[in-house]
Protein backbone atom coordinates (compact mmCIF):
# COMPACT_ATOMS: atom_id res chain seq x y z
CA UNK A 1 0.00 0.00 0.00
CA UNK A 2 1.47 3.29 -1.05
CA UNK A 3 -0.66 6.08 0.42
CA UNK A 4 -0.51 7.13 4.07
CA UNK A 5 -3.59 6.04 6.04
CA UNK A 6 -6.77 8.10 5.81
CA UNK A 7 -10.41 7.74 6.79
CA UNK A 8 -13.12 7.17 4.20
CA UNK A 9 -16.71 8.27 3.89
CA UNK A 10 -19.02 7.21 1.08
CA UNK A 11 -21.32 10.18 0.63
CA UNK A 12 -24.98 9.40 0.05
CA UNK A 13 -26.02 12.85 -1.15
CA UNK A 14 -24.60 16.28 -1.95
CA UNK A 15 -25.73 17.51 1.50
CA UNK A 16 -24.03 14.58 3.20
CA UNK A 17 -20.78 15.21 1.29
CA UNK A 18 -20.81 18.92 2.22
CA UNK A 19 -21.46 18.10 5.88
CA UNK A 20 -18.54 15.65 5.88
CA UNK A 21 -16.21 18.14 4.19
CA UNK A 22 -17.25 21.01 6.46
CA UNK A 23 -14.91 20.03 9.25
CA UNK A 24 -12.16 22.31 10.57
CA UNK A 25 -10.43 19.51 12.50
CA UNK A 26 -9.47 17.22 9.62
CA UNK A 27 -8.06 17.69 6.14
CA UNK A 28 -10.93 16.28 4.11
CA UNK A 29 -11.08 16.11 0.32
CA UNK A 30 -13.73 15.00 -2.13
CA UNK A 31 -12.91 12.03 -4.36
CA UNK A 32 -14.37 11.86 -7.87
CA UNK A 33 -12.70 9.59 -10.44
CA UNK A 34 -9.50 9.50 -8.43
CA UNK A 35 -7.39 9.73 -11.59
CA UNK A 36 -5.43 12.69 -10.26
CA UNK A 37 -6.03 12.44 -6.53
CA UNK A 38 -5.09 8.76 -6.07
CA UNK A 39 -1.76 9.12 -7.94
CA UNK A 40 -1.06 12.07 -5.63
CA UNK A 41 -1.97 9.93 -2.63
CA UNK A 42 0.25 7.12 -3.93
CA UNK A 43 3.12 9.59 -4.22
CA UNK A 44 2.19 11.06 -0.82
CA UNK A 45 1.95 14.48 -2.39
CA UNK A 46 -1.55 15.30 -1.17
CA UNK A 47 -2.09 15.50 2.58
CA UNK A 48 -5.49 13.92 3.22
CA UNK A 49 -6.98 12.69 6.49
CA UNK A 50 -10.42 11.90 5.16
CA UNK A 51 -11.67 11.12 1.68
CA UNK A 52 -15.27 11.89 0.94
CA UNK A 53 -16.27 9.68 -1.99
CA UNK A 54 -18.74 11.40 -4.33
CA UNK A 55 -19.03 8.32 -6.56
CA UNK A 56 -22.48 7.18 -5.37
CA UNK A 57 -24.19 10.55 -5.68
CA UNK A 58 -26.27 9.84 -8.76
CA UNK A 59 -27.52 13.44 -9.08
CA UNK A 60 -23.93 14.42 -9.94
CA UNK A 61 -24.19 12.29 -13.10
CA UNK A 62 -27.28 14.05 -14.42
CA UNK A 63 -27.51 15.89 -17.70
CA UNK A 64 -30.01 18.73 -17.92
CA UNK A 65 -30.74 19.74 -21.47
CA UNK A 66 -32.45 23.04 -22.20
CA UNK A 67 -33.04 25.13 -25.28
CA UNK A 68 -30.06 27.40 -24.82
CA UNK A 69 -27.66 25.31 -22.77
CA UNK A 70 -26.70 21.87 -21.49
CA UNK A 71 -25.70 21.25 -17.85
CA UNK A 72 -23.39 18.29 -17.29
CA UNK A 73 -23.11 16.71 -13.84
CA UNK A 74 -19.60 16.93 -12.38
CA UNK A 75 -19.19 13.16 -12.19
CA UNK A 76 -19.61 12.47 -15.90
CA UNK A 77 -16.46 10.71 -17.09
CA UNK A 78 -14.42 11.81 -20.10
CA UNK A 79 -15.46 8.58 -21.87
CA UNK A 80 -19.15 9.57 -21.73
CA UNK A 81 -18.29 12.58 -23.91
CA UNK A 82 -15.96 10.53 -26.12
CA UNK A 83 -18.68 7.95 -26.80
CA UNK A 84 -21.41 10.52 -27.37
CA UNK A 85 -23.39 9.15 -24.42
CA UNK A 86 -24.27 12.72 -23.43
CA UNK A 87 -25.92 15.33 -25.66
CA UNK A 88 -23.65 17.77 -27.44
CA UNK A 89 -24.18 21.43 -28.15
CA UNK A 90 -20.61 22.21 -29.14
CA UNK A 91 -20.57 20.92 -32.72
CA UNK A 92 -18.56 17.91 -31.56
CA UNK A 93 -15.75 19.74 -29.77
CA UNK A 94 -16.53 18.25 -26.35
CA UNK A 95 -16.71 14.74 -27.73
CA UNK A 96 -13.37 15.24 -29.47
CA UNK A 97 -11.75 16.54 -26.27
CA UNK A 98 -13.25 13.73 -24.17
CA UNK A 99 -11.58 11.26 -26.51
CA UNK A 100 -8.09 12.63 -26.29
CA UNK A 101 -7.50 13.12 -22.58
CA UNK A 102 -5.02 10.57 -21.26
CA UNK A 103 -5.91 6.97 -22.23
CA UNK A 104 -9.13 5.01 -22.45
CA UNK A 105 -8.55 3.29 -19.08
CA UNK A 106 -8.19 6.74 -17.47
CA UNK A 107 -11.08 8.30 -19.42
CA UNK A 108 -13.55 5.71 -18.14
CA UNK A 109 -12.93 6.96 -14.58
CA UNK A 110 -11.71 10.58 -14.69
CA UNK A 111 -14.49 13.15 -14.54
CA UNK A 112 -15.10 16.58 -16.05
CA UNK A 113 -15.78 18.03 -12.59
CA UNK A 114 -12.63 16.52 -11.08
CA UNK A 115 -10.52 17.88 -13.92
CA UNK A 116 -11.91 21.41 -13.47
CA UNK A 117 -11.72 21.32 -9.66
CA UNK A 118 -8.07 20.29 -9.82
CA UNK A 119 -7.35 23.17 -12.23
CA UNK A 120 -4.12 21.77 -13.57
CA UNK A 121 -3.20 24.56 -16.00
CA UNK A 122 -2.59 21.99 -18.73
CA UNK A 123 -5.88 20.12 -18.28
CA UNK A 124 -7.84 19.76 -21.49
CA UNK A 125 -11.29 20.50 -20.05
CA UNK A 126 -10.13 23.74 -18.50
CA UNK A 127 -9.22 25.36 -21.81
CA UNK A 128 -12.23 23.78 -23.53
CA UNK A 129 -14.89 24.91 -21.07
CA UNK A 130 -13.47 28.44 -21.03
CA UNK A 131 -13.34 28.47 -24.84
CA UNK A 132 -17.00 27.44 -24.94
CA UNK A 133 -17.91 30.24 -22.51
CA UNK A 134 -19.07 27.71 -19.92
CA UNK A 135 -20.23 28.25 -16.37
CA UNK A 136 -19.75 26.13 -13.29
CA UNK A 137 -22.32 25.59 -10.58
CA UNK A 138 -20.88 25.30 -7.08
CA UNK A 139 -22.74 24.08 -4.04
CA UNK A 140 -21.58 24.42 -0.44
CA UNK A 141 -22.61 25.09 3.14
CA UNK A 142 -23.93 28.50 2.09
CA UNK A 143 -25.91 27.28 -0.87
CA UNK A 144 -25.50 27.37 -4.62
CA UNK A 145 -23.74 29.83 -6.87
CA UNK A 146 -22.88 30.03 -10.52
CA UNK A 147 -19.63 31.39 -11.93
CA UNK A 148 -18.14 31.86 -15.38
CA UNK A 149 -15.52 29.13 -15.86
CA UNK A 150 -13.00 31.87 -16.64
CA UNK A 151 -13.55 33.36 -13.16
CA UNK A 152 -13.62 29.96 -11.45
CA UNK A 153 -9.93 29.31 -12.16
CA UNK A 154 -7.80 31.76 -10.23
CA UNK A 155 -4.33 30.31 -10.85
CA UNK A 156 -2.37 27.11 -11.26
CA UNK A 157 -4.27 24.47 -9.21
CA UNK A 158 -6.28 27.32 -7.68
CA UNK A 159 -10.00 27.83 -7.97
CA UNK A 160 -12.81 29.81 -6.40
CA UNK A 161 -13.99 26.70 -4.50
CA UNK A 162 -14.47 27.48 -0.80
CA UNK A 163 -14.00 24.97 1.96
CA UNK A 164 -16.59 22.17 1.73
CA UNK A 165 -17.84 23.52 -1.58
CA UNK A 166 -18.41 21.11 -4.46
CA UNK A 167 -18.46 21.61 -8.17
CA UNK A 168 -21.92 20.33 -9.03
CA UNK A 169 -22.24 20.85 -12.76
CA UNK A 170 -20.73 22.44 -15.83
CA UNK A 171 -23.09 24.48 -17.98
CA UNK A 172 -22.25 24.91 -21.65
CA UNK A 173 -24.24 27.28 -23.87
CA UNK A 174 -25.33 25.70 -27.15
CA UNK A 175 -23.02 27.08 -29.77
CA UNK A 176 -24.28 28.35 -33.11
CA UNK A 177 -24.62 25.50 -35.63
CA UNK A 178 -22.62 27.55 -38.10
CA UNK A 179 -19.66 27.88 -35.73
CA UNK A 180 -16.47 26.00 -36.62
CA UNK A 181 -13.80 24.93 -34.16
CA UNK A 182 -10.11 24.21 -34.37
CA UNK A 183 -7.98 22.59 -31.71
CA UNK A 184 -4.26 22.12 -31.40
CA UNK A 185 -2.41 20.41 -28.56
CA UNK A 186 1.37 20.28 -28.28
CA UNK A 187 2.42 17.26 -26.29
CA UNK A 188 5.48 15.02 -26.31
CA UNK A 189 3.45 11.84 -26.07
CA UNK A 190 -0.16 10.95 -26.95
CA UNK A 191 -2.34 11.19 -23.86
CA UNK A 192 -0.01 13.36 -21.85
CA UNK A 193 -0.82 16.77 -20.47
CA UNK A 194 -0.32 19.59 -22.95
CA UNK A 195 2.82 21.71 -23.29
CA UNK A 196 0.53 24.10 -25.07
CA UNK A 197 -3.05 23.89 -26.19
CA UNK A 198 -5.29 26.23 -28.12
CA UNK A 199 -8.90 26.28 -29.23
CA UNK A 200 -10.28 28.63 -31.85
CA UNK A 201 -13.98 29.11 -32.53
CA UNK A 202 -15.30 31.06 -35.47
CA UNK A 203 -18.82 31.70 -36.62
CA UNK A 204 -18.55 32.99 -40.20
CA UNK A 205 -22.20 34.12 -40.25
CA UNK A 206 -21.80 36.35 -37.22
CA UNK A 207 -18.09 36.98 -37.97
CA UNK A 208 -17.50 36.23 -34.31
CA UNK A 209 -14.36 34.50 -33.07
CA UNK A 210 -13.08 33.27 -29.74
CA UNK A 211 -9.59 32.01 -29.12
CA UNK A 212 -8.14 30.55 -25.93
CA UNK A 213 -4.64 29.32 -25.11
CA UNK A 214 -4.05 26.85 -22.28
CA UNK A 215 -1.16 25.26 -20.39
CA UNK A 216 0.03 28.78 -19.61
CA UNK A 217 1.07 28.58 -15.90
CA UNK A 218 -2.37 29.50 -14.68
CA UNK A 219 -5.84 30.10 -16.03
CA UNK A 220 -6.12 29.74 -19.81
CA UNK A 221 -5.73 33.07 -21.61
CA UNK A 222 -8.59 34.39 -23.72
CA UNK A 223 -7.15 36.32 -26.66
CA UNK A 224 -9.82 38.97 -27.11
CA UNK A 225 -7.87 41.33 -29.37
CA UNK A 226 -6.83 38.51 -31.67
CA UNK A 227 -10.46 37.40 -31.85
CA UNK A 228 -11.45 40.88 -33.02
CA UNK A 229 -8.74 40.75 -35.69
CA UNK A 230 -10.11 37.42 -36.87
CA UNK A 231 -13.57 38.94 -37.13
CA UNK A 232 -12.11 41.70 -39.25
CA UNK A 233 -10.53 39.15 -41.58
CA UNK A 234 -6.87 39.73 -40.67
CA UNK A 235 -4.30 37.65 -42.55
CA UNK A 236 -2.05 35.09 -40.89
CA UNK A 237 0.87 37.47 -40.52
CA UNK A 238 -1.23 39.98 -38.65
CA UNK A 239 -2.75 37.27 -36.51
CA UNK A 240 0.66 35.92 -35.57
CA UNK A 241 1.76 39.36 -34.45
CA UNK A 242 -1.48 39.92 -32.56
CA UNK A 243 -1.25 36.61 -30.69
CA UNK A 244 2.40 37.23 -29.79
CA UNK A 245 1.63 40.69 -28.52
CA UNK A 246 -1.39 39.65 -26.50
CA UNK A 247 0.47 36.78 -24.84
CA UNK A 248 3.49 38.98 -24.13
CA UNK A 249 1.20 41.56 -22.52
CA UNK A 250 -0.27 38.93 -20.17
CA UNK A 251 1.25 38.69 -16.69
CA UNK A 252 2.76 35.23 -17.24
CA UNK A 253 6.40 36.10 -18.10
CA UNK A 254 6.81 33.48 -20.84
CA UNK A 255 10.30 32.50 -21.95
CA UNK A 256 10.92 33.20 -25.65
CA UNK A 257 10.64 29.47 -26.42
CA UNK A 258 7.33 29.12 -24.55
CA UNK A 259 5.96 32.21 -26.23
CA UNK A 260 6.79 30.75 -29.62
CA UNK A 261 5.16 27.44 -28.68
CA UNK A 262 1.92 29.11 -27.59
CA UNK A 263 1.81 31.37 -30.66
CA UNK A 264 2.28 28.32 -32.87
CA UNK A 265 -0.46 26.35 -31.09
CA UNK A 266 -2.86 29.28 -31.38
CA UNK A 267 -2.12 29.81 -35.08
CA UNK A 268 -2.58 26.12 -35.84
CA UNK A 269 -5.89 26.03 -33.98
CA UNK A 270 -7.00 29.04 -36.02
CA UNK A 271 -5.93 27.28 -39.21
CA UNK A 272 -7.82 24.15 -38.21
CA UNK A 273 -10.94 26.21 -37.69
CA UNK A 274 -10.49 27.00 -41.38
CA UNK A 275 -9.66 30.64 -40.90
CA UNK A 276 -6.44 31.13 -42.78
Amino acid at each position, binding site marked *: *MKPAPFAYHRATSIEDAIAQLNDDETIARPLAGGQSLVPMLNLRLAPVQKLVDLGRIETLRRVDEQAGRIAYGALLPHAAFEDGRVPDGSNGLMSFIGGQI*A*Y*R*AVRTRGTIGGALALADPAADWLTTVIALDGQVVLVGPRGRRSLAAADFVTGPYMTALDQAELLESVVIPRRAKTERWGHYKVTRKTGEYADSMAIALFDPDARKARIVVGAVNGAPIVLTKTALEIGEGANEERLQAAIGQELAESDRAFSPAKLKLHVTAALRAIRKAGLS
Partner: protein
Amino acid sequence: MKTEITLTINGKQRKALVEPRQSLADLLREDMRLTATHLGCEHGVCGACTILLNGEPARACIALAITLDGSEVRTLEGLQDDPLMGVLKQSFHEEHGLQCGFCTPGMLISSHDLLQRKKGLDEEQIRVAMSGNLCRCTGYQGIVRSIKAAADKWAEKMTASEEVAS
Protein backbone atom coordinates in the same frame (compact mmCIF):
# COMPACT_ATOMS: atom_id res chain seq x y z
CA MET B 1 -9.91 0.39 10.27
CA LYS B 2 -10.94 -2.26 7.78
CA THR B 3 -14.27 -2.37 5.99
CA GLU B 4 -15.92 -5.35 4.33
CA ILE B 5 -16.69 -5.02 0.65
CA THR B 6 -18.14 -7.43 -1.90
CA LEU B 7 -16.85 -7.63 -5.45
CA THR B 8 -17.66 -9.95 -8.32
CA ILE B 9 -14.22 -10.98 -9.47
CA ASN B 10 -14.02 -13.01 -12.68
CA GLY B 11 -17.63 -14.04 -12.26
CA LYS B 12 -17.43 -15.11 -8.61
CA GLN B 13 -18.66 -13.14 -5.64
CA ARG B 14 -15.81 -12.42 -3.25
CA LYS B 15 -15.78 -10.64 0.08
CA ALA B 16 -12.75 -8.73 1.25
CA LEU B 17 -11.69 -6.68 4.25
CA VAL B 18 -9.96 -3.55 3.02
CA GLU B 19 -8.26 -0.49 4.40
CA PRO B 20 -9.36 2.75 2.71
CA ARG B 21 -5.88 3.23 1.23
CA GLN B 22 -5.73 -0.22 -0.37
CA SER B 23 -5.74 -0.18 -4.16
CA LEU B 24 -7.71 -2.65 -6.23
CA ALA B 25 -4.37 -3.86 -7.63
CA ASP B 26 -3.02 -4.71 -4.16
CA LEU B 27 -6.29 -6.42 -3.28
CA LEU B 28 -6.18 -8.55 -6.44
CA ARG B 29 -2.52 -9.47 -6.14
CA GLU B 30 -2.06 -9.85 -2.42
CA ASP B 31 -5.43 -10.94 -1.07
CA MET B 32 -6.90 -12.73 -4.10
CA ARG B 33 -3.61 -14.09 -5.43
CA LEU B 34 -4.56 -12.97 -8.93
CA THR B 35 -1.13 -11.93 -10.11
CA ALA B 36 -1.75 -11.41 -13.84
CA THR B 37 -2.44 -7.80 -12.92
CA HIS B 38 1.04 -6.27 -12.82
CA LEU B 39 2.22 -3.12 -11.12
CA GLY B 40 4.70 -0.82 -12.80
CA CYS B 41 4.37 2.88 -12.07
CA GLU B 42 1.44 2.88 -9.62
CA HIS B 43 0.26 6.25 -10.79
CA GLY B 44 -1.77 5.50 -13.87
CA VAL B 45 0.85 5.98 -16.57
CA CYS B 46 2.19 2.58 -17.65
CA GLY B 47 -0.97 0.51 -18.07
CA ALA B 48 0.47 -2.74 -16.64
CA CYS B 49 -2.37 -2.92 -14.08
CA THR B 50 -5.23 -2.40 -16.56
CA ILE B 51 -8.28 -4.53 -15.69
CA LEU B 52 -11.98 -4.39 -16.60
CA LEU B 53 -14.18 -2.62 -14.10
CA ASN B 54 -17.89 -3.05 -14.78
CA GLY B 55 -16.89 -3.97 -18.33
CA GLU B 56 -14.68 -0.95 -18.98
CA PRO B 57 -10.89 -0.78 -18.81
CA ALA B 58 -9.49 0.92 -15.71
CA ARG B 59 -6.21 1.29 -13.85
CA ALA B 60 -6.26 -1.00 -10.82
CA CYS B 61 -3.34 0.91 -9.23
CA ILE B 62 -5.32 4.13 -8.84
CA ALA B 63 -8.72 2.63 -8.04
CA LEU B 64 -9.29 2.41 -4.29
CA ALA B 65 -10.87 -0.95 -3.53
CA ILE B 66 -13.18 0.46 -0.87
CA THR B 67 -14.87 2.72 -3.42
CA LEU B 68 -15.76 -0.26 -5.61
CA ASP B 69 -18.08 -2.17 -3.28
CA GLY B 70 -20.61 -4.05 -5.45
CA SER B 71 -18.62 -3.68 -8.68
CA GLU B 72 -17.67 -6.31 -11.20
CA VAL B 73 -13.97 -6.82 -11.87
CA ARG B 74 -12.43 -8.92 -14.60
CA THR B 75 -8.72 -9.64 -14.80
CA LEU B 76 -6.76 -11.50 -17.46
CA GLU B 77 -7.31 -14.71 -15.48
CA GLY B 78 -11.04 -14.27 -16.02
CA LEU B 79 -10.73 -13.99 -19.79
CA GLN B 80 -9.21 -17.42 -20.38
CA ASP B 81 -12.20 -18.73 -22.30
CA ASP B 82 -12.90 -15.52 -24.14
CA PRO B 83 -12.65 -16.13 -27.91
CA LEU B 84 -11.31 -12.67 -28.81
CA MET B 85 -8.71 -12.96 -26.06
CA GLY B 86 -7.70 -16.31 -27.56
CA VAL B 87 -7.13 -14.67 -30.93
CA LEU B 88 -5.10 -11.86 -29.33
CA LYS B 89 -2.87 -14.24 -27.37
CA GLN B 90 -2.21 -16.32 -30.47
CA SER B 91 -1.28 -13.17 -32.42
CA PHE B 92 1.03 -11.88 -29.69
CA HIS B 93 2.72 -15.28 -29.82
CA GLU B 94 3.06 -15.36 -33.60
CA GLU B 95 3.99 -11.71 -34.20
CA HIS B 96 6.51 -11.26 -31.40
CA GLY B 97 4.23 -9.12 -29.25
CA LEU B 98 6.10 -9.86 -26.04
CA GLN B 99 9.49 -10.56 -24.59
CA CYS B 100 9.58 -10.56 -20.78
CA GLY B 101 5.79 -10.42 -20.51
CA PHE B 102 5.62 -7.75 -17.84
CA CYS B 103 3.42 -5.38 -19.83
CA THR B 104 1.50 -8.14 -21.60
CA PRO B 105 -1.58 -8.53 -19.36
CA GLY B 106 -2.22 -4.78 -19.66
CA MET B 107 -1.57 -4.86 -23.40
CA LEU B 108 -4.04 -7.73 -23.80
CA ILE B 109 -6.80 -6.14 -21.72
CA SER B 110 -6.42 -2.77 -23.46
CA SER B 111 -6.33 -4.23 -26.96
CA HIS B 112 -9.25 -6.55 -26.15
CA ASP B 113 -11.31 -3.51 -25.18
CA LEU B 114 -10.12 -1.63 -28.27
CA LEU B 115 -11.06 -4.40 -30.73
CA GLN B 116 -14.48 -4.70 -29.13
CA ARG B 117 -15.17 -0.99 -29.45
CA LYS B 118 -13.60 -0.21 -32.81
CA LYS B 119 -13.54 -1.94 -36.18
CA GLY B 120 -11.27 -1.45 -39.19
CA LEU B 121 -8.42 0.22 -37.30
CA ASP B 122 -5.23 1.10 -39.13
CA GLU B 123 -1.78 0.92 -37.60
CA GLU B 124 -1.74 4.61 -36.68
CA GLN B 125 -5.05 4.35 -34.82
CA ILE B 126 -3.83 1.28 -32.94
CA ARG B 127 -0.69 3.17 -31.89
CA VAL B 128 -2.69 6.12 -30.58
CA ALA B 129 -5.17 3.91 -28.75
CA MET B 130 -2.42 1.80 -27.19
CA SER B 131 -0.31 4.79 -26.12
CA GLY B 132 -1.38 4.25 -22.51
CA ASN B 133 0.44 0.92 -22.28
CA LEU B 134 4.21 1.07 -21.99
CA CYS B 135 6.58 -1.75 -22.86
CA ARG B 136 10.21 -1.50 -21.87
CA CYS B 137 11.59 -4.43 -23.84
CA THR B 138 9.72 -5.72 -26.91
CA GLY B 139 9.47 -2.43 -28.75
CA TYR B 140 6.14 -1.42 -30.18
CA GLN B 141 6.49 -2.76 -33.73
CA GLY B 142 5.70 -6.33 -32.71
CA ILE B 143 2.91 -5.27 -30.37
CA VAL B 144 1.17 -3.12 -32.98
CA ARG B 145 1.62 -5.91 -35.56
CA SER B 146 0.08 -8.42 -33.14
CA ILE B 147 -2.97 -6.27 -32.54
CA LYS B 148 -3.44 -5.56 -36.24
CA ALA B 149 -3.18 -9.28 -37.02
CA ALA B 150 -5.69 -10.09 -34.28
CA ALA B 151 -8.06 -7.40 -35.55
CA ASP B 152 -7.94 -8.86 -39.07
CA LYS B 153 -8.44 -12.43 -37.84
CA TRP B 154 -11.29 -11.36 -35.59
CA ALA B 155 -13.01 -9.45 -38.41
CA GLU B 156 -12.76 -12.57 -40.61
CA LYS B 157 -14.24 -14.74 -37.87
CA MET B 158 -17.09 -12.30 -37.34
CA THR B 159 -17.97 -12.19 -41.05
CA ALA B 160 -17.79 -15.99 -41.24
CA SER B 161 -20.17 -16.39 -38.30
CA GLU B 162 -22.54 -13.77 -39.73
CA GLU B 163 -22.65 -15.72 -42.99
CA VAL B 164 -23.47 -18.91 -41.09
CA ALA B 165 -26.22 -17.10 -39.19
CA SER B 166 -27.87 -15.67 -42.31
